[in-house]
């Protein structure tokens, strides 16, 4: 399968960072380091009145290695140009380590501690001033040309129904195949939503050892969800015609396309080279903090922490979410949903059911990826969607078989 010949060359551009990566956006991230600092941070973002100031954060007061690593990855994501950290003051989050990490990345960074600043209004005013200075500091940075082999693209599905696995998901798979032919790094995920696909997936791994790691990580997911008492299956999935978890899995799996699987990564691991990667989002060890991902945005945030510049989100029932930091493209699987919610949908993959070709829709997504990297906003971006969620988790580092040498 070769890249569509009729595809025009779209001039992508990115902001070059000190680590060599390029960002397709240049946003200021305002990060609260405990829920107690959330309101003040939200006010700073709202009163900054700019689509390029995004709110992220971690709500917990107890320390968590995963949350710290995620925040480090997110605050130094290539789409982020500068960072304002907002702490209450008494929480255990290692704010100095995060501040040092962002500073070392060459980005402007500031830290406000509400208890030291003197409360809500004083922190808000200081935060607005800090954001203004940061925006001025990064406004002069000029983007440079960017190629497909510098892009990281994640895919996720949400609100799946009986059409998802027939239209939107295989169309994204087609797009993934073409991106990977061009040495882009593509990530698919939610091992808990791939239960039932473990053997087929393992057979696509580039080494038998990686195949065994993939099977083991799906087993881990099945065990985890069994203990939690629920699989990743929502009532809306059933209303839309899906009956079982493994049926939903088979549909979700088709987002991965047909390329060989080059590696198995965990949240925060950045794919080392072009190819297809599976992201293991299910925590290691005994279940302890709750469901692996309590909603779609938790998965999106993990894909972004792995370096994803943009997210391809397929939906049958109709999701409206976007994300902080990286733009989200909505690929709608169901033609009836598209008609009802077209404002939120970037691509109508449901037309495949009415006779359109999978390749045509795949090409439309492939071109849209490049248009977004050229500066066009996605619909969720234009509508102001900047959802974000980060919760407690625990992971062990990946083993040596997970990323075989090329």
């Amino acid at each position, binding site marked *: 399968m070769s890249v569509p010949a009729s595809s025009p060359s779209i001039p992508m551009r990115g902001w070059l960072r000190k680590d060599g990566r390029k960002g397709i956006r240049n946003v200021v991230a305002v990060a609260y380091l405990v829920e107690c600092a959330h309101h003040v941070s939200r006010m700073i973002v709202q009163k900054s009145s700019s689509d390029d100031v995004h709110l992220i954060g971690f709500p917990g007061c107890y320390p968590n290695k995963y949350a710290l690593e995620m925040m480090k990855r997110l605050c130094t994501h290539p789409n982020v140009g500068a960072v304002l950290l907002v702490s209450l003051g008494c929480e255990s989050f290692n704010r100095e380590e995060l501040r040092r990490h962002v500073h070392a990345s060459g980005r402007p960074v500031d830290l406000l501690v509400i208890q030291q600043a003197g409360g809500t209004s004083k922190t808000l005013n200081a935060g607005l001033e800090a954001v203004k200075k940061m925006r001025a500091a990064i406004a002069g940075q000029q983007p440079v040309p960017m190629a497909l082999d510098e892009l990281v693209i994640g895919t996720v599905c949400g609100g799946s129904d009986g059409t998802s696995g027939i239209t939107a998901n295989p169309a994204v798979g087609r797009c993934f195949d073409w991106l990977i032919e061009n040495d882009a790094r593509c990530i698919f995920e939610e091992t808990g939503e791939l239960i039932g696909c473990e053997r087929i997936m393992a057979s696509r791994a580039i080494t038998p050892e990686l195949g065994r790691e993939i099977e083991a990580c799906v087993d881990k997911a099945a065990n985890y969800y069994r203990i939690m008492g629920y699989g990743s299956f929502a009532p809306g999935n059933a209303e839309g*015609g899906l*009956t079982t978890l493994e049926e939903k899995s088979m549909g979700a799996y088709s987002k991965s396309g047909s390329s060989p699987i080059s590696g198995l990564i965990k949240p925060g691991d950045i794919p080392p080279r072009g190819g297809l990667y599976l992201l293991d989002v299910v925590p290691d060890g005994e279940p302890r903090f709750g469901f692996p991902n309590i909603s779609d945005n938790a998965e999106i945030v993990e894909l972004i922490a792995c370096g994803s510049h943009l997210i391809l989100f397929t939906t049958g029932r109709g999701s409206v979410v976007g994300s902080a930091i990286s733009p989200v493209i909505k690929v709608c699987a169901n033609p009836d949903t598209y008609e009802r919610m077209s404002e939120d949908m970037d691509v109508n993959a449901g037309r495949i059911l009415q006779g359109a070709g999978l390749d045509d829709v795949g090409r439309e997504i492939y071109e849209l990826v490049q248009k977004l990297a050229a500066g066009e906003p996605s619909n969720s971006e234009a509508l102001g969607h900047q959802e974000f969620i980060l919760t407690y988790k625990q992971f062990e580092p990946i083993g040596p078989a997970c990323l075989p040498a090329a």
Partner: protein
Amino acid sequence: MTETPIPTGKLPPLLLLHPDDNILVARRDIAAGERVEIDGETFAVPHAVELGHKLARRDIAADARVLKYGAPIGSMKTAVARGEHVHMHNLKSDYIPSTTREPGGH
């Protein structure tokens, strides 16, 4: 955005996703009593089936595996006859049971 022209002509209301499958997927809403073609034979669908839902391509016995995309997606709780709706009431996961909520909200 480039819109592909949609071919005119009548598209079959049921999709066979893989030759091994024992279910078919509704390409659009199908009314009760509507006549559809299953493997070359015309057949009246006993109950309405919504877009994206499944119906039996042939009689399927209780405990038999259901195949979609050529892959097992669960086992039958009860037997079904050809043309019947295959869903929560008669098909179950071989991994983790599915959950539903109270219908309504419209």
